[in-house]
């Protein structure tokens, strides 16, 4: 008991308290100015927006893949099942440089993005924000743009959704589907009205897990993003750049903000997971 608590405090509690204290040392006005400065706001919008979008796409792709893995038998299924964890097991730096290579202008996927974007640019001459994006894609593929960050975040969120959904789908049991079938429902209706509602808690949990991971993600993203302030700078990177300029206070403030949000998300995740376990009693 003692060992546990001592170790815990040493490694976790004390450091985190230090962070908050440092941040607090800055004073309220500075806090506010810092948190509402354009660069911080841009990074926040970018980080949260892209994480939410990526988590959503992870959920959709994850649902598809889990369905196929759990319900169908086909050659190579076992192998693919094991591979789902790859984004989770792969070091973030490796993921980062690999994704950049794939989605960059000359990459296997990136070159197609670039050519499609070039065609769109020359046919429709889009303007405004979308125009900027398309121009960027035409020049650099998905690199140095929010699209690249989005793709990287989807990559890392994917296993969370699948592994959360899998036990729920495996335990579901066929009898409710058979019951619905005897009552005259077709497959699509059975999916939409009988199966999907039961998956919602797991989908929500998977989304939150992917989201929480995405907002803090560093290694997978910094290579492909190009780290352009106001455009592709994510919050974690902003913290690092403050640190490199020895602005410890500013870094601490932003970090504390992120920490509070992480705690809140952790809390929500635990609630959701407990609800999930209860529902599947």
């Amino acid at each position, binding site marked *: 008991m003692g060992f546990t608590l001592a170790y815990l405090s040493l490694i976790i509690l004390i450091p985190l308290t230090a962070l908050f204290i440092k941040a607090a040392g800055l004073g309220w006005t500075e806090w506010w100015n810092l948190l509402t400065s354009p660069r911080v706001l841009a990074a926040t919008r970018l980080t949260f927006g892209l994480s939410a979008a990526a988590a959503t796409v992870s959920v959709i792709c994850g649902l598809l893949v889990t369905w196929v893995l759990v319900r169908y038998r086909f050659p190579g299924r076992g192998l693919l099942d094991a591979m789902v964890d790859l984004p989770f097991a792969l070091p973030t730096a490796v993921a980062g440089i690999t994704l950049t290579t794939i989605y960059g202008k000359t990459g296997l996927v990136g070159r197609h993005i670039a050519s499609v974007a070039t065609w769109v640019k020359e046919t429709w001459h889009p303007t405004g924000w979308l125009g900027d994006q398309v121009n960027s894609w035409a020049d650099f593929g998905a690199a140095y743009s929010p699209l690249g960050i989005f793709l990287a975040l989807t990559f890392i969120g994917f296993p969370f959704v699948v592994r959360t959904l899998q036990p729920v789908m495996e335990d579901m049991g066929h*009898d*409710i589907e*058979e*019951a*619905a*079938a*005897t*009552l*005259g*429902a*077709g497959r699509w*209706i059975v999916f939409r*009205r*009988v199966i999907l*509602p*039961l998956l919602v808690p797991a989908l929500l949990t998977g989304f939150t897990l992917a989201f929480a991971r995405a907002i803090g993600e560093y290694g997978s993203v910094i290579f492909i993003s190009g780290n352009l302030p106001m455009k592709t700078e994510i919050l974690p990177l902003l913290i690092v750049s403050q640190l490199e300029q020895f602005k410890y206070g500013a870094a601490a403030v932003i970090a504390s903000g992120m920490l509070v949000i992480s705690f809140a998300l952790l809390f929500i995740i635990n609630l959701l997971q407990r609800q999930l376990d209860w529902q599947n009693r």
Partner: protein
Amino acid sequence: MSISIQSISKTFGSYKALEDVSLEVPNGSLTALLGPSGSGKTTLLRIVAGLEFADDGPGNILFHGENVSGVPAGRRGVGFVFQHYALFRHMTVAQNIAFGLTVLPLSKRPSRTEIRERVHELLGLVRLDGLDKRRPHELSGGQRQRVALARALAIRPRVLLLDEPFGALDAKVRKDLRRWLRVFHDQIGLTTLFVTHDQEEALELADQVVVMRNARIEQVGDPQTVYDHPRSSFVYEFLGNVNKLIESEGIHRYIRPQEIEILFVAEFNPDTDKLGQIQHLFSAGPVATLSVRLTDGQFLEVEMSRKQLDELALDTGDEVTVRVKPEELP
């Protein structure tokens, strides 16, 4: 609507679940498919429902003369009640019951009001009025079972199929629901086929009992016939308690516990009787059960009323005469 099952066979991989099974279920009857696990009864029920399909071949399923063999469950017009109810746990009781109606194609679907009325009517029929807004996890086992029943009936099925309907319930609830089901069946008159491994249940409930074993039908008949005139030793042993006496090399004799009477040793008649000693006496309740060890070492189980037990003042260790009741002799 009568059900005609003709030459149905079903194999799962290398396992033969049903072998050339044929059966007639008369219109409006309550028929029990009775048998031990693995006898094929549930498979047969599911084939009748359209949840499984028989092996290719001469087999057919007919509802009132119409061949439904290839028709999938949703379009066969069957009401199916699952052993563990299979209620939709994210829906209320009312939504569960209404489900079959809400998935009808638009052309055939009743209006919202009509659906609501029908649900209300069914809730009354199964004695669950007022529980429409509850969710399945808030209900007892017996209540859930009745919701499952109401849900199946909402679509006005041609036949009603029940898979071990009382299997998951406590003994007391089971008995009560059993009685209720019989009355209910008489009320609605729908052809009903149910599966059970409980012989007491089958004998008490059904108009027609179908005893199954190892992918085949052993015997079909009304409860009285099947019990009193079993056609094979399996049927005899399966329905009710039985003693099996070895008379001589390869000859068995079956006697039911209630067909034996106990007399004092003084009344022993060597032509008809045997001698034995009471090993064990169980007398809580209206019926007393005695375990008697015969002189040749075999054991017999004997049943008598408490009154008779008291009159004879029997106790463990007593020597007694054992005789088959004259009226039970063939």
